[in-house]
């Protein structure tokens, strides 16, 4: 059994104040290991985004603990949490959150710049990951000149550029059409396996099920179930994407 890279232990999270107070997570236990794509599924308002934020050290739990590579986050300052994020965690958002004034290449470079990787080598690395997600011919494009699927692939490149052990994605396919949604899921699956990272994706989308190694279900702030997909089954779309990558770059 591999050592978990990210663990949540009895995580409770209260959000809001006074009459608007909501207990979004009511004692969640979850651990993620490398080499797996885990899907987090559940109805709207069940606490998926909240859990993702806590796992990503963006929010801190009201009680319980989160451990990143075995290191507890309890009592850490916002600056220390930021350091954990830049060392270990990559994020992918539903609405991409790219910088509109930066090109695809620069969007990736800034994520490297933030962790102190600058200069020519950083530029090389940014180009490498963009090629890896099939955008070798879109390096200088600005987000407004990229399709939704391409933008999300830039976001994926940005998330993996610094080689984090964990990639967290909140509804990465929700804004994409079917074809692009499949492409992004295939990419995430490949990142988990080929690059041996732990990937957790929140999703509503049943089309994404085929890519999962593991599906975790959450309802009303509690984990209610978990399934594992039998090993050795390959989604046809993975082969598809590989073909397209060859054409592109």
């Amino acid at each position, binding site marked *: 059994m591999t050592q978990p890279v990210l663990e949540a232990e009895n995580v409770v999270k209260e959000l809001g104040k006074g009459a608007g107070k909501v207990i979004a997570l009511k004692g969640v236990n979850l651990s993620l290991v490398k080499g797996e794509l885990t899907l987090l599924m559940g109805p709207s308002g069940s606490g998926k985004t909240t859990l993702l934020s806590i796992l990503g050290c*963006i929010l801190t739990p009201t009680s319980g603990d989160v451990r990143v590579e075995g290191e507890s986050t309890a009592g850490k300052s916002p600056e220390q949490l930021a*350091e954990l994020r830049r060392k270990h965690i990559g994020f992918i958002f539903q609405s991409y959150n790219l910088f509109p004034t930066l090109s695809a290449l620069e969007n990736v470079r800034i994520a490297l710049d933030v962790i102190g990787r600058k200069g020519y080598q950083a530029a090389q690395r940014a180009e490498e990951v963009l090629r890896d997600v099939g955008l070798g011919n879109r390096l200088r494009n600005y987000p407004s000149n990229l399709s939704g699927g391409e933008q999300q692939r830039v976001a994926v490149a940005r998330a993996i550029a610094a080689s984090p052990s964990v990639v967290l994605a909140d509804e990465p396919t929700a804004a994409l059409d079917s074809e692009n949604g499949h492409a992004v899921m295939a990419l995430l699956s490949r990142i988990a396996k080929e690059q041996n990272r732990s990937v957790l994706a929140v999703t509503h989308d049943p089309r994404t099920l085929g890519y999962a190694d593991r599906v975790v279900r959450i309802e009303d702030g509690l984990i209610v179930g978990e399934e594992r997909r039998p090993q050795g089954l390959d989604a046809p779309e993975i082969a598809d994407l590989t073909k397209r990558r060859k054409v592109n770059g």
Partner: protein
Amino acid sequence: MILTLAFRNLFHDRIRLAVTLVGILFSIVLVAIQLGMYLGSSRMITSMIERSNSDLWITAFGAKSFEEGGILLSTRERHQALATPGVKAVIPLVVAFAEWRKPEGGSTRVVLVGTDAEDGALEPWSLVSGTWQDIKSPDAISADDTYFRELGINGIGDTAQIAMGRVKVKALTHRIRSFTQSPYVFTTLSRARSLLGAESDKATFYLVQLEPGADAEAVRLELLNRLEGAEVLTKNEFEDRSLRQWLFRTGAGLALIGGALLGILVGTVIVAQTLYSSTKDHLNEFATLRALGSSSGYIYKVILAQAGLSAVIGYILGILISLGILYISRNTPLPLVMTPGLAGALFGLTLFMSAVSAISAIIKVTRIDPATVFNR
């Protein structure tokens, strides 16, 4: 990448950039004009004292400025001063406001400066036409070519009347401007006395030149001891006193400094406002940066870089415009002055202003919650 992002954020919204730059520019030009006027005024006020070749000035007690010394000192003081150890020469100067009657009628006030250039203490500088020999000829004076209109003359050869007597313009100085707006007119010591109706042994100031190696402070104290009813000032002291009289007793200096402060304030507010709104517009991006693990220092640097870039661009434009105004002002009653020191100070001021402006934006950004990245 910090600079790249700052640059893109800045140029992303051209209109806001224009407002920012106009704010900085306005501020710089305003401060440059005010301080330029202040410097210009100071130079005008002290030019005579500055140009004099003297170590100490003996003035009648209470002399307020170069122009207001009275004609009260006499040969007695001169001899007492000359007898003081360490004193090489004591050179008389007569200076007074006097009425100038224009050749075509009407009158104005001038500052008549009576000096004997041979004495080597003060002579009309920047003579552009005529020589000191010409000024020594009968009835001769020098006038400044930038004051022809005020003096009602057209050039060399014109005649006018100063106080008691007829004078003839025999030489011209160029751009010796006067803060009091009463033009400086040079003539010989004896002619100045007679025009002003002063006794032939009287003087406004005695300019003291010291023996080489003499201790100025010791001589000053000794002179003070020997001279009753007179003051002995160093060049700097007398300059300061003249400045205080004209710039601060009259309130002109305060108005100039107040104007400069106002310029700084208005500029800072405009820049702070635009920087704040730019930061607000890019708040999502800053939240994303934060989620990606950037330190808050990184984000402050982006904002400060934005402020710094605006400052540099605004400064360059502002200085260019200021230099233009400076050029236009060169023959006006109050020529502006720009020195490398002032230009440097303005740049420092611009950077400071932008840094202060960045505070509100930085406070705004400290409050961002990186959790907002998921809810868009």
